[in-house]
């Protein structure tokens, strides 16, 4: 079963087949379960967390995991690690979602337009080249210095970094779809460029956009952790898994625990997205599946 590039396939049917393939793929199911856990942890963090993430307990720093009241122990300021991991997961998901939104909002239109009009392509491609070649960290540090850091800022920096690949993927798909029979047919019926892009190209480019989004998501989650680890992302007292790791690094020789759990949380988030993303890619484009 293959999606023939020449025939427009009703979206509902694609969705149905995709779902079916996803469910039959054990990796996809494992990824879905992990994602579900992560999403529940993130979305319901305020309900699940026993304490506020920044709540300091001066009398009980460095509790070990399994301590009564502090399931995963406490850090140097006596803050509950479980609560911080939950809120940190929430922050990671927020940054991931925001940067996907950012990359989609800017990358998809640019990709569509530059795939459609050659003259625009030259300009957009140069800008994309620049973004790819420009050292990302300098951009992130610069943005952090100007705007004072924070979650939104990290999401913007990470989103910008992902724009060029999004543009390329969408552009390539637009180029392909432009030559398909149904678009050519629309042309002969005097459909305007906007109508063609919006009604014919975009819906059929959705699969590649979704797949690219599942690639951006874990990259952004890791990126946020790295930026925050370097002090350029989310700023304390806001919780972040990256900040927890950089804090923990300071006293790792004394107590390794506070540095273990946020790392595991990060790995689980990314593993979930990678597994699910792989399965989704296979399901959407059976040619690459085994």
């Amino acid at each position, binding site marked *: 079963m293959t999606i023939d590039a020449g025939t427009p396939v009703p979206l509902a049917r694609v969705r149905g087949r995709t779902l079916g393939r996803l469910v039959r793929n*054990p*990796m996809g199911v*494992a*990824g879905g*379960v*992990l994602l579900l856990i992560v999403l529940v942890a993130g979305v319901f963090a305020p309900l699940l967390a026993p304490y506020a993430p*920044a*709540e*300091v307990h*001066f*009398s*009980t*720093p*460095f*509790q*070990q*995991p*399994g*301590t*009564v*009241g*502090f*399931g*995963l122990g406490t850090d*140097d*300021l*006596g803050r509950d690690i479980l609560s911080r991991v939950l809120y940190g997961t929430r922050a990671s998901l927020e940054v991931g979602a925001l940067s996907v939104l950012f990359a989609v909002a800017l990358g998809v239109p640019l990709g569509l337009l530059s795939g459609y009009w050659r003259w625009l392509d030259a300009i957009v491609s140069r800008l994309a080249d620049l973004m790819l070649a420009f050292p990302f960290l300098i951009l992130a*540090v610069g943005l*952090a*210095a100007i705007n*004072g*850091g924070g979650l939104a800022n990290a999401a913007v920096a990470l989103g910008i970094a992902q724009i060029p690949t999004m543009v390329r993927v969408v552009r390539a798909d637009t180029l392909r779809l432009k030559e398909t029979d149904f678009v050519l047919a629309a042309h002969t019926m005097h459909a305007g460029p906007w109508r063609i892009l919006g009604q014919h190209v975009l819906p059929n480019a959705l699969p590649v956009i979704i797949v690219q989004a599942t690639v951006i998501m874990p990259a952004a989650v890791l990126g946020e952790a790295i930026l925050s680890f370097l*002090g350029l992302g989310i*700023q*304390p*007292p806001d919780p972040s898994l990256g900040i927890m790791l*950089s*804090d923990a*690094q*300071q*006293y*790792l*020789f*004394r107590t390794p625990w506070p540095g273990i759990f946020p790392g*595991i949380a990060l*790995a*689980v988030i990314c*593993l979930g997205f990678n*597994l699910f993303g792989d399965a989704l890619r296979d399901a959407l484009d059976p040619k690459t599946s085994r």
Partner: protein
Amino acid sequence: MSPRSSLYAALAVLAAATLTACVPVQHVSGRSEHHNDFGTPVGDQRVADGGELVMGLSAEPDRLDPTTSSSLYTRYVMSTICEKLYDLNSAGSVVPQLATTLPKVSPDGLTVTIGVRTGIVFADGTPFDAKAVATSLQRHFSLKTSQRTSEMGPVKSIEAPDPSHVVLHYKRPFAPITAALADRAGMIMSPTALAKEGNGFGDHPVCVGPFKFVQRVPQTSITVTRDPRYYDAKDVHLDKITYRIMSDANIRAANLRSGDIQVADTISPQDIDALAKDPGLKVLQAPSLGYQGVTLNTGNVDGVGKPTKPIDTPLAKDPRVRQAFSLAIDRQTLVDTVFNNWFDPACSPIAPQTPYASAASNACPAFDPAKARQLLHEAGVPIPYPVSMQVSNTQDQLRYAQALQASVAESGFDLKIVPVEYSTLLDVQKRGTFEALMLGWSGRVDPDANTARFLSTGAGGNYGGFNSSTLDNLLGAASRSIDVKTRAALYGQAVQLIQQQNPIVYTYRLRNLTVRSTRIAGVEVYSDGVVRLGKAAYLQNQEG
């Protein structure tokens, strides 16, 4: 490991954590006392001649030019290659180094005469004399890009009447000059090198010192080697010292343990307990002359140096609100928690170990959340009262800020932490675009540089825009007086006033924590924080 089993592993960890949730809460044990240890000279220990010592330096020095340098870490390297007219001793007093006597001040306080050594040479062979000293001091004072100008005070002229005496003429009496000459303003550069290198002196610094500059690898290291021409060469034992730049505190700690480096500065309070237990290592500690604190903006609207303007917030207008903020800080608990009790609470700009400290300057308002709340009520402000505090986004600063936030919350302050990058913070501080700002001061030997600079009306460092003629008069009188006791009394009065008005709320005082290998001797650290390696040596049979 298949993806599924990694999921099970994660679940197992979670399950294990919940099942074993039976460990009772462990409370912090009592505090231990800390005793100063400045290190000792080699003395009559049997030491080896030769060997290379490697020091892990916590920050890269800037230009190795005593006139234009502003980084504190530059002093660490300069201490081995560039001696000063005066130095400190372990007691914190000023003693002659390249000078032969303490400065003689004329009765009107306007003429300062300094006797200097003769018959010694710079590392390039140029003879050292009063003329060379005058050339260096003149450069410190008048070079456009000099960072020393204000430290030198209101100098009128500098002259060398004979080869062994230098005379500084002042427009007004200036007591802090002695202490300034025990810091970078007292470093004397070879006039030959100055003539040859000019502004590039820092690339190839030449002074008088036990060691001389060899090379600098950017971002990596600075190497110095023994100077055979040094006047006291018999007391110099090492062949070579390499300063390796290691900005991460835990990397310095790891390298100390592995023996890759023999000395490291600015050890984190997080690592120091573990290092202290290592039989191969020894901790040196010297309390800082500086302070850490929160500057509250009371009048800096148009930028520092511009005339102050009133700010229409209770925090800026009403001293009771600021006093409440000071009373809301549990200083002891904060240093215990954040710095493992290695740093000390502080309530004034006068370090308690200096001769300028007094009962009045050492007094510290106790933590009193009830009184703080009451003051806020009296001031008629809504509780919780929001305060936005800008802080440098470095780890220690952020950790302290978060603990501070928790501490003042109890008294009704809603402290909002705004972390900004250090360079941005400096900019914010200068412009006055802050309500409260947390930043420390490394401290100087003379208290004038720790007080007037930040609190006198119109002073270059009065970032909070504080404006009090009473305080100006007290600090002014203290800087003109030469008598230590008189000055101490005046600073005591100043501190009392500061603690009523709280333009700066002092929080804690660092200790300069240095760790050395027990294989070496002669490493000394005084209260200026400089790690002195010039006369260090490997113990016999312990050569590296």
